[in-house]
């Protein structure tokens, strides 16, 4: 899966020879981004459950307490609403808090604070809430219904919130930095299945990945796949298989930013290929694929040679048992099958 890492590194102007020793994982990349922003800007601080003494459930902030001290690395009570609320208050005072949700599923008790306080703050009062809320999302880890969700669609109709979801270590670092510097609330979804599974060498210099910009993860002329997060990797695998077996080339767009969305990149690709498949891990009904389909429809209907299709999770919670979770999760073959259907249309 480091294939993508290489692609991203290349896109970022890196050398082609990768020194595996210098490569960092997706998790380390987030960690580095956070660390560097805290070094560079002392108004940045982090708060959440078990992030200080323990270093976070996934050890992402391990060592932060020692280095930055208890005034900037704060273990909170189990109070997600207060974590997000306190972050909003601190942001009104000029600080730049980064909140960790131990699992992104636990953002639900903070829903009101995010949707009603953080998201609407700037519009109502001209004073925004410069906060980041990050946490591990997604399935594949046998986490069951409450440790596997993808929550982007809960917030997609909430004006005032930005959302990003990196698929590579490069983007993970660039996006956490962009999120921290962004003057508005940003939800940062890190796919826990990727934490230690993707790796790449990152630039030495400071860089950000602009919020709102998608990435063409693979070029191709036959079909556009629009996806993000863990599904980028499955889509790339599917694309390789189709290339090898069918000789067709699939373009894979890694959204990276879910709101705002990079319409231009999507539309550019679909105008080129005339065919589009959207892949996401969350259930189908009300998933982000709907919004993307609507935009494609509005902006390049005339170019479509086939209906826009979606490969998604089914309309169920995420089940726990391995055979069930594997069945729930989108697999490479599902993408291959839908791609072939579209290519043949």
């Amino acid at each position, binding site marked *: 899966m480091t294939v993508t890492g290489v692609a991203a590194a290349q896109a970022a102007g890196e050398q082609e020879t990768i020194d595996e020793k210098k490569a960092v994982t997706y998790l380390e990349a987030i960690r580095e981004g956070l660390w560097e922003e805290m070094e560079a800007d002392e108004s940045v601080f982090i708060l959440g459950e078990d992030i200080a003494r323990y270093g976070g459930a996934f050890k992402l902030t391990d060592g932060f307490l020692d280095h930055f001290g208890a005034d900037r690395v704060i273990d909170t009570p189990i109070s997600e609403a207060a974590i997000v*609320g306190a972050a909003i*208050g601190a942001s009104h005072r000029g600080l730049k808090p980064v909140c960790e949700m131990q699992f992104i599923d636990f953002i639900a008790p903070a829903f009101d604070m995010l949707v009603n*306080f953080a998201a609407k703050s*700037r519009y109502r*009062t001209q*004073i925004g809430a410069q906060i980041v809320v990050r946490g591990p999302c997604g399935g594949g880890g046998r986490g069951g219904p409450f440790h596997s969700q993808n929550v982007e669609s809960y917030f997609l109709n909430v004006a005032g919130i930005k959302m990003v979801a990196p698929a590579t270590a490069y983007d993970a670092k660039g996006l956490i930095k962009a999120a921290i510097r962004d003057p508005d609330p940003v939800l940062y979804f890190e796919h826990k299945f990727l934490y230690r599974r993707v790796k790449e060498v990152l630039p030495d210099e400071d860089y950000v990945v602009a919020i709102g910009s998608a990435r063409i993860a693979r070029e191709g002329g036959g079909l556009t796949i629009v996806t993000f997060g863990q599904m980028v990797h499955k889509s790339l695998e599917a694309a390789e298989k189709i290339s090898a077996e069918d000789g067709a080339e699939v373009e894979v767009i890694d959204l990276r930013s879910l709101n705002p969305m990079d319409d231009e990149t999507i539309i550019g690709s679909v105008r080129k290929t005339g065919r589009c498949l959207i892949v996401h891990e969350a259930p189908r009904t009300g998933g982000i694929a709907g919004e993307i389909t609507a935009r494609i429809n509005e902006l390049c209907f005339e170019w479509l040679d086939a209906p826009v299709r979606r490969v998604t999770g089914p309309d169920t919670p995420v089940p726990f048992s391995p055979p069930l979770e594997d069945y729930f999760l989108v697999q490479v073959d599902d993408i291959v099958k839908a791609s072939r259907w579209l290519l043949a249309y």
Partner: protein
Amino acid sequence: MDDLSQTQLQELYYYMKLTRSLEGRLEFLFKQGKIVGGLYSSLGQEAESIAAAYALEDGDWLGPGIRNLGALLVRGVSPKEMLLQYMAKADGPCRGKDTTTHFTDPVRGLVGPISPLGTMICVMSGVALSFKLRREPQVALTFIGEGATRTGAAHEGTNLAAVQGSPLVLIAEDNGWAFATRTHEEVANTNLVDMAEGYGVPGVQVDGNDALAVYAAAKEAVDRARGGGGMSIIEVKTYRMKGHAQHDAQKYVPPEELELWRARDPIDRYISYLTAESLATESEIAEMDKRIEAELDQAVSEAEASPMPDPVSALSGTYADAPPAELWAREL
């Protein structure tokens, strides 16, 4: 009151009366159809709101509820601003996008509440936390209705401030009603102060219609917070003399109860104190009243003359940068 000068004691009266008169004007304008949306009154509760805010100093922060208009006046908000806000004018603090006390101003240290109750405590706990983290000697103060103390957010915010030892003062206002629900239907122990022990913070219960008692308690709590002593809870017992909002005729309120509390009116009581202690003469008070009315006459006429917002401004301001809404159009 030892630490308040005569001028300050008179000023306390000024704010209480200003609040009551301003709310009277608002009610009048509401009946004329000039107020947009709901109108909330603090009639009978002016003392606690104002006296608590009066304990703050420059640089401190305040997070009001919808019935804390008086506290905002103390912290430098002008009657005209409040009128513009309630009249949904373009030059109101929210540019017409929101109403009541819902505005935020970091310069004056104000955080505007949102309607979902309890959330403000979480946010003010963050303001207070920022003082602590930065080792700045400032204090945050906020209010919560007895009804709103029952929200999850109120609990989480109170606890976070308590356990972090953040400089937050929480004024828990028991005004007898949460909309049409009585205090004892919201909480089995109607002495809200008794929750302080569970949170491990000092708590005190005072007569909310006694401005000086509230001031003394607030001052003590503010001083303690400023000195690094962390959070405090002050329960003020008071009474909501009007319905929940203008549209509520409060038919469910027993008239005797209103009478009882009318006799405890905080402003009447404060006037008696000022005159009995020779801190203000009746004519000085009448003079202040006159000044207030003149100020309000001007504020009302200025506010009325002020324009409504430009419809298209509805689209802007959601995000700091390239707001999608500004690119938005109903046509493709």
